[in-house]
């Protein structure tokens, strides 16, 4: 694991008597796509809020981009998407123009650049008439403004249709490849980040239960899934080659797989 851009040590936080974070330790390696997964209410959003300075905590420490003494400075390196709230009387472009000024970004082409990345460069009308997916993408465009080193995305695919989700995955991969961004994405849908993230933090009940990498997932090497067109012949060939078939189960196709097969379009990055 390379150097960390965000480290959390022993973060504890309560809402009244309800302890929501119970000692969160987390290291986010530079340049990784890090998936924070866990069921609703596990504490993902709260972890992000403590990183972003929107939520106070009782115990522990946070180091962002080496600024452990002055987290506000570190936060200057972060772009984030937590919800897609904007001024509803402004257009998407005007909203981003406002945030460009607020964030002190000098380059006037920045808004067009990020709108293009999320595919909203031709969108018309005011924000309040945007579809859910467009609002979501505008939120991500806002996070991308100023090319931050670190991107925090809280359930960015919530409310998107399957094509939107697939597009989003592509986008994350591109951002990592093109800009070397470190991206932290949360999701409560397990399959969603499977092929997107390099590393997963499993959040449960206010702690990081475990961090696993893609390699860890691949290591269980006696268990492979091979999809064939002729099941009977495949079994025979394996037996002839002296390979014991220990188990075999009829695998249902994933709905997503089925959907994309039927309608075309892109699946995983």
């Amino acid at each position, binding site marked *: 694991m390379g150097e960390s851009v965000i480290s959390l040590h022993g973060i504890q936080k309560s809402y009244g008597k309800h302890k929501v974070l119970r000692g969160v330790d987390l290291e986010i390696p530079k340049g990784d796509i890090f998936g924070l997964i866990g069921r609703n209410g596990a504490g993902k959003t709260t972890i992000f809020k403590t990183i*972003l*300075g*929107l939520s106070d905590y009782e115990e522990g420490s946070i180091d962002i981009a080496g600024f452990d003494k002055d987290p506000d400075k570190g936060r200057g390196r*972060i772009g*984030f998407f937590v919800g897609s*709230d904007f*001024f509803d009387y402004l257009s998407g472009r005007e909203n981003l123009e406002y945030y460009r*000024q*607020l964030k002190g970004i000098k380059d006037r082409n920045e808004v067009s650049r990020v709108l293009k990345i999320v595919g909203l460069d031709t969108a018309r009308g005011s924000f309040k008439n945007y579809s859910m997916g467009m609002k979501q993408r505008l939120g991500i465009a806002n996070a991308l403004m100023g090319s931050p080193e670190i991107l925090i995305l809280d359930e960015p695919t919530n409310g998107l249709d399957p094509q939107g989700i697939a597009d989003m995955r592509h986008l994350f991969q591109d951002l990592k490849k093109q800009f070397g961004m470190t991206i932290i994405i949360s999701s409560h849908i397990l399959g969603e980040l499977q092929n997107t993230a390099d590393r997963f933090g499993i959040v449960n009940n206010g702690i990081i239960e475990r961090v696993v990498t893609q390699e860890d997932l691949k290591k269980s090497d006696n268990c492979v899934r091979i999809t064939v067109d002729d099941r009977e012949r495949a079994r025979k060939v394996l037996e002839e080659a002296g390979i014991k078939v220990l188990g075999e189960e009829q695998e249902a196709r994933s709905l997503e797989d089925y959907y994309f097969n039927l309608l075309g379009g892109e699946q995983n990055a």
Partner: protein
Amino acid sequence: MRNYISADLKRICRRIPRAIVLASVYVILILIVVLSAGQNTWNSVTFTLIVEQYIAALTVIFGIIELISVYSDDFKAKTMQVAIGTGLQRDRVVFSKYTELLVLTFADLVLFAAAALISAAVVKTGYSADQAMEISVLCFKVWLSIAGYSSLSMILIFFTQATGLATLLYLGLAAKIVSALLSLLTDLDAIQFLHLNRLLLSTMLDTFGSRLVLNNFNVPSFIGILVYIGIGYAATVFLFRKRELEF
């Protein structure tokens, strides 16, 4: 911080409902001046009296318009969260927002005074330099009142992260409902001799304003007003420091 202020000011000035309300304030003023000018009782004294009466309502009108302009959309769009999440210190958020309010209401009042004096000049009301000064001084007093009452209301704004309750408090303060109730207390026989009434923000604003009209800068009441502003501001910063911000 400067970026936050200037981005907000640009956005607020383009807000159409706000522009309509402000425009009607000015249009009504100009109409009053122009239409009254036709009456034979009209002279520079009646002009000054009418405008002063109008100015008395501005603490409420401008204060509430700008309070809502500065905060309400910000809360809906969760702009503060973005500002803080991308590294703006919380104290600076409070400072930025309060500055915006002061800048906007100052501009509103300068425009108001200009509209009054220019429209009166156009209809040939021969007011004196003293009368013009008096109108400007009263506008300045309104600005100080807005600064004082809004700094107290700001405590609620930042604490509740909403404008509803705070606007009510502001209305109570600016319409002198709060001070009327408090003076019932301060006038109680047992404590009347302490003259606590003098310490009310509204009393100090009145003292300061009425002296300034007479070209007398009353230092104690001015300091008193600044103390109130400081208390509201400091309490806001203190309470906002650890406030949970929702998404």
